[in-house]
């Protein structure tokens, strides 16, 4: 995943000299995504910033407004809160408030989510909060190949885009095509077709969802796994189409449940494909708590193959009360 992101950054910065990238320790690159960029593109275009999230998120907006294409690294999703003002009040609003006078081509990078015992202040999944702002797009890749194509799309996009990489899963393997390819934002992928139930899985949840689907296939249960790839814009058409075929929906979202993207997808389907539904819509999310440190606790709150499988089975087994 990281390798794919690194390639995308190299190729895009090579391709478009207007791109400038900055953030904390992007030269040393804690995650490896920005590794080597400083050497190749120099200290003008690749800048280590002080620890000043309120400033750097705002600089991204000003720099983009003044004509640059910007990649701004926020490091951990939780630090987005520290730089939230410029994201929520400026980046998400400036174009609208000025009646479309400007474009804000900004890609914000951040890792998001738990799974590494990094505890509550380094493990938040921040996409629901960002999604409610309305003015930022959100990319959540489910595989390395997608990561490359989606990151390129994000960078070439003329709007603020959050590219959220699943924390600690950056090392995940997967084939990444060599060539220059771009995956358009807003197009879901059906990762696995199936007629019995639609399983929408977001970002890092695609992998356990696929595992669950494989396991259940052994029993003759055919689960269709839909990977939205981007949360904003959301490819509702593909999701609705799938649910209309299967009649059943489970959503896996590594986010706190309340106001999660899982909730939102459920709401959309309960409105637009109600007649197709033959069972309650279930969500596999994180309970409304923080992400704890101890692995045994953390595992207990994060979605897993087991909890996904349980939700799928419950949905399949559900019968309308007599």
């Amino acid at each position: 995943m990281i390798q794919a992101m690194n390639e995308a950054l190299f190729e895009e910065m090579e391709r478009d000299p207007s791109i400038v990238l900055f953030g904390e320790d992007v030269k040393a690159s804690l995650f490896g995504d920005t590794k080597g960029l400083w050497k190749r593109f120099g200290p003008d275009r690749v800048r280590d910033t002080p620890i000043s999230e309120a400033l750097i998120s705002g600089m991204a907006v000003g720099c983009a407004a003044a004509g640059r294409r910007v990649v701004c690294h926020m490091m951990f999703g939780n630090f987005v809160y520290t730089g939230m003002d410029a994201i929520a009040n400026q980046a998400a609003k400036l174009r609208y408030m000025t009646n479309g006078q400007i474009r804000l081509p900004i890609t914000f990078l951040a890792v998001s989510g738990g799974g590494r015992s990094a505890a509550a202040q380094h493990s938040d999944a921040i996409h629901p909060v960002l999604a409610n702002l309305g003015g930022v797009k959100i990319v959540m890749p489910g595989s390395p190949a997608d990561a490359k194509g989606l990151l390129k799309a994000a960078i070439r996009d003329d709007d603020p885009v959050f590219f959220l990489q699943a924390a600690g899963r950056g090392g995940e393997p997967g084939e990444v095509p060599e060539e220059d390819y771009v995956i358009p934002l807003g197009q879901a992928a059906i990762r696995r077709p199936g007629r019995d139930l639609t399983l929408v899985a977001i970002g890092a949840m695609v992998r356990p969802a696929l595992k669950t689907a494989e396991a259940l296939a052994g029993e003759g249960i055919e689960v269709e796994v839909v990977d939205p790839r981007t949360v904003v814009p959301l490819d509702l058409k593909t999701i609705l189409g799938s649910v209309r075929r299967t009649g059943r929906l489970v959503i896996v979202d590594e986010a706190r449940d309340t106001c999660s993207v899982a909730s939102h997808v459920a709401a959309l389907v309960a409105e637009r494909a109600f007649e197709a539904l033959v069972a309650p819509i279930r969500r596999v999310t994180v309970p409304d708590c923080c992400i704890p440190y101890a692995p045994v606790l953390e595992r207990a709150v994060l979605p897993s193959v087991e909890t996904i499988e349980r939700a799928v089975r419950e949905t399949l087994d559900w019968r309308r009360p007599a």
Partner: protein
Amino acid sequence: MASIGGNLPREELLEMYRGMLTIRRMEEQLARDCAAGKLPGPVHLYVGEEAIAVGVCRHLSERDWITSTHRGHGHFLAKGGDPARMMAEIYGRADGICGGFGGSMHVADFSKGIIGANGIVGGGIALAAGAALAVQLDGDGRVAVAFFGDGAANQGVLAEALNVAALWKLPLLLVCENNGFSEFSPTATVTAGSIAERARPFGLPSVEVDGNDVVAVWQAADVAVRRAREGRGPSLIEARTYRTRGHVEYEVTFITEPYRDEAEVEAWRARDPIDRLARRLREEDPAVEAKLAAIAAAVEETVRAAVRFAEASPEPDPASARGHMFANA
């Protein structure tokens, strides 16, 4: 050409007079409109502080960038924003500079280098730093200016900007308009020590000027802008001034006890930047009166034309309300 007021050419002084008077008359119109219930949203007027926007912006071209505040009409106009389209915006009309989507606190014109007014106190500081980074990379001598208030100086982002601007030698000018108040709090009650001094620990030059003296502001900005254009880095200017009107026009509806002395307001009215410049010009050359009158007449006509334009403009189409959230939809 004859030059007065610290070696400034008279033409420059007259242009500054015109600039300040345009802001003043436009805002007096807005004050009347607000009192008459014609404005849908809140307006924060710049009356008494015009010398700062004008003294600084006279050094800028449309290709330089500024960011502004909730009290942003003066910066918009001084930087070359169109009065009629600003008026239409504040009236909430389709021909407003932001199509009625932004209103008073968001007047912006990117084609003129105006990133815009800002409803977030301190919000423009980081934007200006970002714009300064962009023009620094372009390397063509352009600059970015952030206007902000004394209240905004207490937002931490100022310190963050001072640090990065110093480290990266950004072509950035930070202009603090110290008008004595954060809303209804006198500066001394919420602002410790000196704002200008806050630049020093970062190694940035800073200066305090009389913000009601347009010539003094012009001169300080001249030094700072030149410095930035030549790649010698950022500066901070603290301009001391006073807002002679309320914080927000509708404050009379909720402020039941006065938060300042009428005598203090009067004392500052006596130091009005427009009157001061006019006096200075008349002292130098009594014959300037005719020119001042001509400017005043032209300004009145600008205001009237702006009102006509705004009133003639239709309301925005409600079907467009979802607006331009994204460029690539």
